[in-house]
């Protein structure tokens, strides 16, 4: 799969050259750094604040980046017809989708790594010690990464069916809805209509359940992630990404570029 690797590496190169991405990372690091300031104000919960704010920053900025590069490097390419150069070469359409996705994941990985380093720098500055329990946030960051992997796969899917702006909007909407799926299912269960109950339950399983991966508050209070949850969530993310990418490939194979 030489071509897939070429597309992935090239996507990565194109992504990291974008100035906006750099700005986002700088902001993220600033946010994480500011956690130290906040913590000095509050008494007794310094570490909680640093972990809370730091991890939330990684999550929020990670989301912005994921949507940004997902749309910028797939929807925009399709929209601006830069894709003619690629598709007129001996590249299968599914290779394009998979290569793009892998390149985006690589970019996200590097960015998250940078933010994680910043996070731990802030944490060590705050606590001035390194114990085994300080590695707990790594699990949470891993969960954030899984969330972002799903978000990017959604961005790729929406890119194949609509314009850059709409794709960004759809992806963001699904992300938000994906956090309230249990509320939605409960609402569905309390109504009388069987059809609504069924629809709510179906949506609960169909849409990506992002709240599975929300662990920031717990981590700030010292909770550990169980091994089963780690494995289950990883499996969930892998399955969902596979499905989103498969759906994208299905659409993309038939897509015409007028």
């Amino acid at each position: 799969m030489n071509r897939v690797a070429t597309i992935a590496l090239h996507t990565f190169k194109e992504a990291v050259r974008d100035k906006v991405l750099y700005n986002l990372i700088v902001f993220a690091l600033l946010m994480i750094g500011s956690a130290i300031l906040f913590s000095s104000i509050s008494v007794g919960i310094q570490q909680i604040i640093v972990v809370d704010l730091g991890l939330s920053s990684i999550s929020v900025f990670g989301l912005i980046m994921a949507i940004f590069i997902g749309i910028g490097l797939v929807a925009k390419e399709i929209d601006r017809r830069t894709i003619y150069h690629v598709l007129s070469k001996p590249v299968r359409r599914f290779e394009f989708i998979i290569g793009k996705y892998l390149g985006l994941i690589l970019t996200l990985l590097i960015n998250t790594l940078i933010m994680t380093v910043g996070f731990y720098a802030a944490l060590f500055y705050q606590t001035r010690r390194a114990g085994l329990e300080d590695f707990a946030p790594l699990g949470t960051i891993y969960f954030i990464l899984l969330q972002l992997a799903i978000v990017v796969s959604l961005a790729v899917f929406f890119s194949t069916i609509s314009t850059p702006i709409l794709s960004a909007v759809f992806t963001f909407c699904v992300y938000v809805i994906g956090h309230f799926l249990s509320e939605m299912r409960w609402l569905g269960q309390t109504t009388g209509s069987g059809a609504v109950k069924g629809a709510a339950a179906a949506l609960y399983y169909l849409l990506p359940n992002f709240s599975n991966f929300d662990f920031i508050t717990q981590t700030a209070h010292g909770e550990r992630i169980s091994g089963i949850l780690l494995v289950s969530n990883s499996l969930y993310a892998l399955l969902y990404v596979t499905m989103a990418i498969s759906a994208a490939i299905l659409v993309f194979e038939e897509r015409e570029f007028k």
Partner: protein
Amino acid sequence: MLAVETIGLTKDYSVGFWRKRPKRVLDGLGLRVERGEIFGLLGPNGAGKTTTLKILLRLIFPTSGTARILGKELHDVTTHERIGFLPENPSFYDYLTAEEFLDYAGGLFSLPSREGRRRAARLLEQVGLAESGNIPLRKFSKGMLQRLGLAQALINEPELVFLDEPMSGLDPLGRREVRDLILELKAKGTTVFFSTHILSDAEMLCDRVAILNRGRMQGCGELREMLAPGVASTEIVIESPDLVLLDQLKPCGAVVRTGARVCIQVPKESDVSAVLERVLASSAKIISVNSVKMSLEDYFLAQLAQGGTKEEEKARVAQATGGQQH
């Protein structure tokens, strides 16, 4: 084996928001392009030239009909290893440099990187971008982008090249360079298939052309044969004619005065000798006498104006491609 062959290629789009109506942008197109020739697809804007190219490159799918490229069916992606494509008004990745982009293109052909870089350097020189190798593409002018487009179309040393409006955005020097490039390709044995609405370019380069109008082919064949039938007119240039002579010449043809020189277009061959006699009899000097063949533009406009019935069209097409059996 033909380089490109299409049979009954048709493309319909459904237009309209609520009730979708089919709009036919390509109607039963039948093309035959020989290997090693320069083939021009001509037509006004909106005729379906770009649609044809996109179908051949699998960017859009035909509603009906078939096509073969280098003997292989359309759905065979491996054919792309042997062809190159320059899209109209190409757009690129803003943040890569020209070298990186050609590197990428080479990678998509699975070229080993050293070979890819070598070819890239050579191509950049060929299209006149040798000094712009590491400038990011967002700083390129339209002409530079066009040249880069050409370079990426040739990175795999293709047997068949598709060019959509290759001269667009170029200054006269650039167009000359591209023309030379195309002739070089032909000399190497590469088949060139290009679409354009600039007839003078086609006239200068093409061995065979096809004329497309509103999705239908309205003329196809060797350029020489299409323009051969008869001399269009004779052009006589004389110097310092007197008014008496001019009056005499007016009924014979169009007279254009440029300073001391006068140019007369004599449509009827039989009138030419009479005109020459009159001029010789006067004090005016004959500068030149030229037979002007029908230009491609004339032929083109005539085809478009006629439109004609299906039978006439078929006859014309048959005549133009006459002698070419399957």
